[in-house]
């Protein structure tokens, strides 16, 4: 368990054994904290609980009572669907109609539900579809479309010493101007799974323990989830102001390169990546303008994860050389 001093509600933090956590997940649910959100997770299927515990066991869990942001429950809708061709029905406590997935899809249903809750209900933070990492006062946002490799790059950086904020949901506190970490399991797809298994294997003796099973045949192909590094979980409340925006482009045949872009282009890529820019309005415009004003911006094109990490570190090092990196805001 990480040091409790790093978490918000230390008075009700609880140290579950895996068995205790399994029992709680199977019954009334366990209250899981990920960054700014606390969600009650109840899982009726044993295989999903096993995967969940493997990925989330190092996260803080709370005993009653805590204020919950969300609840999520995954269960078989009736007796037959619990045991015969089991289907995982996802109840996110909202007016939503998820098509049940085969229970064998395990974590896909849970992560899909958590994504839905944040994407549809989070209005207090400006949200970017972006990989976000931080290190030594550098808050790096990498806005990109699905399939651009941003999850792989964010995860890759996090396993080389960067703090993972998120591989998918960048959150900005518009009052303080700080990036808010939300270090969920990293969603890896298709070829990136093998890449990340090799990448994590270079720094961990038990790399397989960091990954869920691979789920084949999803609408996005094969999916596998990766646990963020322990340091990123421990630092889930350590915020950083954004000061670098990099647009990542994966191209297997490209020569690795850092390309300049205009601030206007970076601004609109941030706007287009934001799920709630239109809902928030003026404050969102001001917040993105502030980010771009404070940031060095570029585009990187890369054929491999190793190249991408090198390009990011080169760009950031040059920025640090210019004396522009700010301080931490933990």
């Amino acid at each position: 368990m990480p040091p409790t001093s790093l978490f918000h509600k230390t008075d009700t933090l609880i140290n579950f054994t895996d068995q205790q956590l399994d029992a709680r997940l199977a019954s009334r649910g366990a209250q899981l904290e990920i960054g700014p959100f606390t969600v009650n997770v109840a899982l009726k299927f044993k295989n999903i609980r096993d995967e969940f515990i493997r990925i989330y066991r190092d996260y803080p869990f709370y005993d009653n009572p805590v204020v919950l942001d969300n609840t999520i429950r995954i269960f078989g809708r009736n007796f037959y669907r619990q045991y015969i061709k089991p289907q995982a029905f996802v109840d996110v406590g909202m007016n939503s109609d998820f098509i049940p997935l085969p229970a064998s899809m395990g974590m896909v249903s849970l992560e899909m539900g958590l994504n839905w809750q944040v994407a549809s209900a989070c209005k207090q933070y400006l949200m970017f579809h972006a990989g976000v990492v931080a290190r030594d006062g550098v808050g790096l946002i990498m806005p990109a479309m699905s399939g651009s490799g941003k999850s792989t790059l964010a995860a890759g950086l996090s396993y080389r010493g960067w703090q993972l904020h998120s591989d998918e949901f960048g959150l900005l506190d518009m009052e303080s101007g700080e990036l808010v970490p939300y270090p969920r399991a990293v969603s890896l797809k298709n070829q990136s799974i093998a890449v990340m298994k090799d990448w994590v294997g270079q720094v961990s003796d038990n790399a397989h323990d960091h990954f869920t099973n691979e789920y084949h045949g999803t609408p996005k192909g094969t999916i596998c989830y990766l646990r963020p590094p322990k340091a990123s979980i421990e630092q889930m409340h350590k915020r950083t102001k954004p000061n670098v925006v990099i647009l990542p482009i994966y191209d297997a045949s490209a020569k690795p390169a850092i390309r300049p872009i205009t601030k206007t282009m970076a601004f609109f890529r941030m706007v287009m990546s934001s799920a709630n820019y239109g809902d928030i309005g003026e404050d969102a415009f001001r917040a993105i303008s502030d980010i771009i004003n404070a940031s060095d911006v570029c585009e990187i094109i890369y054929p491999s994860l190793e190249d991408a990490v090198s390009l990011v570190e080169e760009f950031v090092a040059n920025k640090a050389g210019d004396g522009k990196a700010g301080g931490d805001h933990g």
Partner: protein
Amino acid sequence: MSFFLWDFIKGDLTILPSTQSFDRKLVFHVPDNAGLIWSEWEDASIVYDPRSGHTQVLNEFARELLALYEDGPKSLDQLLAEFSKIIDAEPDATTTQNIIETVAGFDNMGLIEPI
């Protein structure tokens, strides 16, 4: 001389209206309650309109034209006359057409309105 104007709200791209029927005598102005908010960078200006929630990017040419409307109400002919003073020449046919299209774009996006 070219210009571009994008409407990026929720990914929609505004199609500029036809300028065939643009009334040159109409006097346009930027409404007092527009409250436009600007971010300006080296290559373009970005304006947020809190009334519509729309975000537009204007290049230097379009920004200059809107600035003339911010100075006070004008008909198209008055705008062309002021623009001529700025460039110290009569705008050619292409430039004039660009100006008309830009003004029509402003009108379509609600950045200016007729009095």
